[in-house]
């Protein structure tokens, strides 16, 4: 009965028939949001609600002396002025260490600073007033007796013996170190025909969601419970934290995520100021709203990707990679990130280095240090871009050294399908992959040979173009073995409830959240396909820790991969129940019935026997017509987690064509191609846009975005005018194509795709720009590639050639 579906346990045609799966269904919320009917935290107002503004530390590192709040408290309209010390009395500090990472250290982080501040922007005093404007007026009047301390800003300085130490109890600033030693790297490098190396610097970035962070906390002293409206990615994580840190029983904590304007990881991190808002609501017994404005977002949102990396690659005379080496130094900001462990960036960098390629000898180290800057957290791609950048730049250099075409070099060194599954020397597990198939599709899509010819021709005319190629693996949808041992209470299972309404329409209640990705549309497609109904007949409800199944929410490219599978399980179970009920109503054998176009159909005759609406009517209103012992179950919940699966491995290859103006250092993006394999594609429209959006964020990282700090730890470009986000005019056309290798461990076969674009785009820009500079003897080492850095790279090359080196 399977019509080509790979899984005979699935009813015919669900995955590959003419159903909603695989269709370009537009995002369900698009029309509503464009119509202005979005409901974000900022749109919600509760009776007796107070508005909160923080006084944040103006210093990167300072002792907090006396705090004089008298002038602020006297401002008309101000109701409370609350210090970090008062909040600490009702709220336990956060602790960001992973228990499964020996040696990982941090210090307790008060949700608002108590005795000293460790970054410019750390919250110190909260002002509550009738309006945010009044609260801001009053916050300006607070006087704090600051005792400024020396600050450490660069990772490279943090381990020096005379560096200021952030957390005295730790003795130094080393948060964590991890070493990898596989095979015999020394011997392999010694025996190599050619060794290439490169050093890399990445300026820190911040994710920049369109809607800044915000929440309304409403503690009810009469019940001892709290309801929180939160612009977040995981209501469940927030529920758990509030319960733990505020000592409120979990079933009395309800977290609702209304419409959320962008996440990118930013909103799954744990923010002291947000926990403080809940604690303050508990202190004052009134609803309290805090909406971060853009300026405070820059100094309080997570930062990311503050790394210095050196890496080497050894190859033999035939162009086979024999060894790699990576040394990563990462700044983590002021504290370990509670639950999300900022060490993830470095860990991913060293484990994933070179993972698409065949090689056996590997040495790597990541060292993570605390500095006086905002906390580092998980941001789209996390540490995967470092591995991609390092391996791809080295692949290009090795190919150049051997006079090989970089595409041929990659193809030769890719792991073949018959090597799957494998574990890379860094420890990355790869079950399914399609490197060569992606590369073939990419080179065809970009007309690689033509671009190479054009590049060579223009080079002779003084036009400097570069072609980049970057292969990457995206670890998606992390499973229980990943977070479980860390003892972090992070749920990697997700649940889905599907409910037949009496009219035959369906409600789907999922623990997956959606900040604009379109995952809910994809989940609705899975439900619709499974039940043989139009997508429009499915309504999604989500984002409420009290009413949905418990789950993870949105992060790590997991929504479709895990939430889609849970939806499939639940829908298939509901389907079986519906058919059983239809069988009871029509006195037919349920095994001979199917669901199609809103009707129960007899598979043998192909005739519709009864509509879903009739099933609903009888199931809910006319049980009297059913056999006495027949149980009607038209609401079904299922969960999904693959207990022993670390993650689902997605992969892809990107290509880029750029032109460098060697007089100005400006880089023009001429074309961008992405071939991605995220397993089964439920909604090609959403997947393509995920890839494109991700690519743009990666191009932002490579070319524009940087948090610029002064030596004393002051952010110097914390506005949207000075921190350059990528904008449409500079973006190239982005061609997206796919290879589909379904995830083997699930029936749906979907893998994640949220981070692919970003990982590959960062890698491919390093490849492309260095390719353009190569004939000039120059290379670039510091991201973003600002005009000044490009010019400096050219100057270094010129100075080198003048000196005869």
């Amino acid at each position, binding site marked *: 009965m399977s019509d080509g579906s790979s899984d005979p346990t699935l009813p015919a045609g669900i995955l590959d028939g003419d159903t909603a799966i695989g269709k370009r269904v537009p995002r369900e919320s698009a029309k509503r949001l464009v119509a202005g009917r979005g409901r974000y935290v900022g749109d919600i107002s509760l009776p007796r609600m107070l508005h909160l503004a923080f006084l944040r530390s103006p210093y990167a590192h300072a002792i907090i002396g006396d705090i004089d709040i008298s002038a602020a408290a006297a401002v008309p309209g101000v109701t409370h002025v609350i210090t970090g010390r008062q909040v600490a009395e009702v709220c336990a500090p956060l602790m960001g260490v992973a228990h499964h990472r020996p040696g990982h250290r941090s210090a307790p982080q008060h949700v608002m600073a108590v005795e000293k501040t460790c970054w410019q922007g750390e919250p110190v005093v909260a002002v509550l007033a009738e309006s945010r404007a009044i609260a801001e007026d009053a916050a300006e009047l607070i006087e704090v007796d600051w005792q400024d301390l020396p600050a450490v800003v660069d990772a490279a300085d943090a381990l020096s013996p005379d560096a200021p130490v952030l957390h005295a109890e730790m003795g130094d600033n080393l948060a964590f170190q991890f070493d990898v030693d596989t095979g015999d790297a020394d011997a392999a490098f010694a025996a190599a025909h050619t060794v290439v190396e490169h050093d890399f610097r990445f300026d820190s970035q911040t994710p920049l969601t369109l809607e800044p962070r915000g929440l309304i906390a409403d503690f009810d002293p009469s019940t001892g419970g709290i309801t929180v409206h939160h612009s977040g990615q995981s209501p469940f994580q927030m529920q758990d934290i509030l319960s733990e840190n505020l000592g409120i029983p979990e079933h009395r904590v309800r977290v609702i995520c209304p419409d959320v304007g962008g996440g990118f990881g930013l909103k799954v991190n744990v923010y002291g100021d947000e926990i403080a808002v809940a604690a303050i609501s508990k202190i004052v017994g009134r609803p309290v709203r805090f909406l971060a404005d853009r300026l405070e977002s820059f100094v309080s949102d997570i930062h990311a990707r503050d790394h210095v990396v050196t890496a080497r690659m050894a190859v033999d005379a035939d162009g086979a990679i024999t060894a790699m080496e990576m040394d990563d130094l990462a700044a983590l900001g002021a504290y370990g990130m509670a639950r999300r462990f900022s060490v993830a960036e470095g860990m991913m960098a060293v484990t994933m280095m070179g993972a698409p390629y065949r090689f056996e000898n590997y040495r790597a180290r990541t060292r993570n240090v605390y500095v006086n800057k905002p906390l580092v957290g998980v941001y789209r791609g996390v540490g995967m871009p470092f591995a991609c950048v390092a391996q791809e730049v080295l692949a290009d250099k090795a190919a150049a050294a051997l006079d090989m075409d970089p595409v041929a070099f990659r193809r030769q060194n890719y792991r073949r399908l018959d090597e799957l599954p494998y574990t890379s020397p860094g420890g990355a597990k790869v079950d399914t992959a399609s490197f060569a198939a992606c590369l073939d599709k990419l080179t065809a899509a970009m007309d690689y040979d033509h671009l190479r010819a054009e590049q060579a021709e223009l080079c002779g005319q003084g036009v400097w173009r570069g072609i980049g190629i970057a292969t990457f693996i995206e670890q998606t949808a992390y499973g229980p073995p990943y977070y479980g041992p860390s003892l972090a209470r992070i749920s990697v299972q997700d649940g889905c409830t599907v409910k037949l309404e009496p009219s035959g329409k369906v409600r789907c209640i999922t623990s997956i959240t959606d900040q604009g990705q379109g995952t809910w549309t994809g989940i609705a497609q899975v439900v619709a396909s499974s039940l043989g109904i139009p997508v429009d007949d499915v309504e999604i409800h989500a984002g409420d820790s009290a009413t949905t199944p418990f789950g993870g929410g949105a992060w790590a490219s997991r929504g479709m991969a895990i939430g889609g599978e849970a939806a499939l399980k639940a829908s298939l179970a509901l389907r079986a129940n519906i058919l059983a009920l239809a069988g009871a109503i029509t006195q037919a054998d349920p095994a001979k019935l199917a669901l199609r176009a809103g009707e129960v159909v007899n598979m043998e005759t192909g005739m519709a026997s009864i509509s879903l609406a009739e099933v609903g009517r009888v199931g809910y209103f006319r049980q009297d017509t059913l056999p006495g012992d027949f149980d009607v179950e038209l609401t079904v919940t299922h969960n999904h987690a693959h207990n022993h699966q670390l993650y689902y491995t997605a992969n892809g290859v990107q290509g880029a064509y750029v032109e460098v103006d060697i007089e100005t250092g400006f880089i023009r993006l001429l074309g961008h191609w992405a071939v991605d394999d995220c397993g089964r594609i439920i909604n090609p429209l959403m997947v393509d846009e995920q890839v494109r959006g991700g690519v743009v964020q990666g191009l932002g990282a490579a070319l524009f975005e940087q948090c610029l700090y002064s030596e004393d730890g002051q952010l110097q470009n914390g506005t949207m005018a000075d921190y350059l986000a990528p904008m449409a005019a500079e973006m190239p056309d982005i061609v997206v194509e796919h290879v589909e290798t379904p995830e083997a461990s699930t029936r749906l076969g979907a893998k994640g795709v949220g981070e692919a674009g970003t990982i590959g785009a960062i890698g491919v820009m390093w490849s492309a720009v260095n390719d353009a500079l190569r004939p000039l003897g120059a290379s670039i080492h510091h991201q973003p590639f600002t005009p000044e850095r490009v*010019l400096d790279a050219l100057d270094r090359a010129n100075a080198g050639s003048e000196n005869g080196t």
Partner: protein
Amino acid sequence: MKAPDFSYVRPASLDEAIGLLVTHGESAVPLAGGQSLLTTLNMRLSAPELLVDISGLDELRGIDVDGGTVRIGALARHVDVATSPVVAEHLPLISEAMAHVAHVAIRNRGTFGGSLANADPAAELPACAVVLKATLVLAGPDGQREVAAGDFYQGLFETTRQGDELLVEVRVPVQPAGQLFAFEELSRRSGDFGIAGLAATGQLEDGGFADLRLAYLGCDDGPRLAAAVAAAVSGQGGPLDDRQIAEALRQDYEFSDVPGLSAATKVRLAAVLTRRALDRMRGAA
């Protein structure tokens, strides 16, 4: 951040507007398109008590040409100037520069007069006004006075406008037929303020430049004619190289480091732009 508390008034006539500025003195500021002013309020960089919204003063609108002079009302919006056939025909330098002024949404509100009055050293239009010998017409309690653009700019966001004066219109001499001109700018993203740029006009005589007027943006604290560059370029037989141009630029302007961009790079970029502008002018001759 939220703007500090302020009062708002939208006068119906120029006299009323000036009267308000006189009465309230330092604590009142004119509000035109608001595209610069409101940002400074929201970032709490300034805290005026009264905003005098001049957008209802229709006499400050309009673009027309009368003999040898183009009159651009202070309230002409960027979008009006950018699409004006009068400007395209008679002030092609400004037409060229407009492509670099902000993004569409901002151009729909931001005004020509607001940009000139604001005196942002990175703005395009003040540099054009200086090069094109524009005259700024200011109305105050004692009537109107005229100030040459070259005298108007006094430094970072500073002009000779008194607090109780309004810029009402700008008179720009029609660019003579055959005049060479170019506008060049580098900005990281289209629509951003430039990191360096210049407006240039001149003639070519006997293979060399004459009457060369160059004013730069993003290079110092305001638009001023770059006399040393003009002299160096005019005096020279063949084209100067970038190093020579940079040397002259350093005599004209004081370049300073900003986060992410050193003074040295800025001079270098300004020199490249200068060469490109002059090459284009030569090519057009």
